[in-house]
């Protein structure tokens, strides 16, 4: 096996494109996971069982089935039902939905960690429910769990290559396409691997700093 620097130079334009798509999928997927996870977590604190249990059913189902299967399902089955989305949108929804079931657990831990006295003070002041959530409980809960949420972004980054299976040309997709065209495999795959570690390791270090700052 030989290392061809020309192949490296050749691959770079495709790599940059793939990197952009990876980061786009990650950013949108994380946004969706954070938002949807919060919705799950708050609904699971509802006093009505009719609200709690469907949410539990959905989140347990999604968490306990593989992301890969979910991606295939979204990509091949949804169009049958008349819902056609681009590959990237489908990938973002798959990643976001899957990870929302993990972030929901993180939020839940954060919410449980807010002292009962905070709820009692909000009741004593007659603060409306939504106000209690958004002004009192969630700011305290999220501050505590921000580093844990960040860890899931890193984990999600490492799962983004999965959306290549539904045809999204993110970093791995570009590498595979390049090697299919040129029969150079080692160079593009190596570059993609290096790119992952160059992004995720500093991100992990940053999260550790964040953890020291926020979680007292």
């Amino acid at each position, binding site marked *: 096996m030989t290392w061809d620097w020309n192949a490296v130079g050749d691959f770079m334009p495709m790599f940059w494109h793939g990197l952009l798509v990876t980061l786009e999928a990650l950013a949108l997927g994380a946004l969706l996971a954070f938002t949807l996870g919060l919705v799950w977590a708050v609904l699971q604190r509802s006093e009505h069982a009719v609200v709690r249990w469907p949410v539990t059913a959905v989140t347990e189902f999604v968490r306990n089935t593989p992301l890969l299967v979910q991606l295939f399902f979204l990509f091949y089955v949804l169009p049958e039902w008349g819902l056609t989305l681009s590959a990237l949108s489908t990938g973002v929804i798959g990643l976001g939905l899957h990870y929302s079931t993990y972030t929901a657990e993180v939020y839940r831990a954060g919410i449980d960690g807010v*002292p009962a*006295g*905070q709820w*009692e*003070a909000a*009741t*004593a*002041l*007659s*603060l*409306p429910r939504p*106000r209690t959530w958004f*002004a*009192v409980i969630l*700011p*305290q809960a999220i*501050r505590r769990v921000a580093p844990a949420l960040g860890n899931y972004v890193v984990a999600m980054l490492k799962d983004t290559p999965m959306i290549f299976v539904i045809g999204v040309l993110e970093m791995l997709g570009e590498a595979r396409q390049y090697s299919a065209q040129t029969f150079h495999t080692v160079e593009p795959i190596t570059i993609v691997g290096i790119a992952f570690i160059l992004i995720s390791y500093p991100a992990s270090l940053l999260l550790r700093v964040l953890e020291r700052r926020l979680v007292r």
Partner: protein
Amino acid sequence: MSADSNLSKESAAVTAANPAVDGSELIRFDKVTKRFGSNTVLDSLDFTVSSGKHVTLIGPSGSGKTTILRLLMTLTRPDEGTIKVDGDYLTHEERGGGLVPAGEKHVREVRKKIGMVFQQFNLFPNMKVMRNITEAPVHVLGLSADEAEARARELLELVGLTEHADKYPTQLSGGQQQRVAIARALAMRPQVLLLDEVTSALDPELVAGVLDVLRDIAHTTDITMLCVTHEMNFARDISDDVLMFDAGRVIESGSPEKIFSEPDHERTRQFLSAVL
């Protein structure tokens, strides 16, 4: 009370929204029973508090004093019996001639007449002192930000913390935090202020500052106070009535002079000799 004096009262920092200081009945517990598991904390309790009075609940721990405050604040619900505040049922509604458990909206309306200060302060740590005080007046009473801030500044002056408005609660001492909590409760202009062992979590040297503020409020306003405390000197100083609790019942009540000097019950005497 003339319309004029009503007006001037309304503008004072601490005045109930609807000042009715004619000694009429403000709180009534009617055969209230509260159990936690097999433990009956309140046993068919009857008692009333007249408007404007300062009532202190004393008794051994576990005798149900704090539960009374928590019932009034709707932090817990009675198993049996009814509670009335200013003539309205707190946890029930009258419908079709009968009593049904009250909806959230009804509870909210009645509860607005009540404010509470907690043992652990329970300030919102994510908000500065000013916003701790203005949050509920803005979002519950519908005051404008300016009105709420003006009200908060008056109250901060009352509790002697004017210069701390822009700090976070954790930057304050326990005594200062508790004084902010008092200001926060008063900002809603409640008719009744519930004080739940408000000095128990404080370092001894910080207790006096908090009690001074409460004494000031008790002596200069007509707010009704219901107070659970182990500070017997404070209780003697501000109370119109003292209720002695034991095992979920009021076993004795009367003026502080009577209860602290010549109680009728042996149990009261025992308790006082243990805490004084």
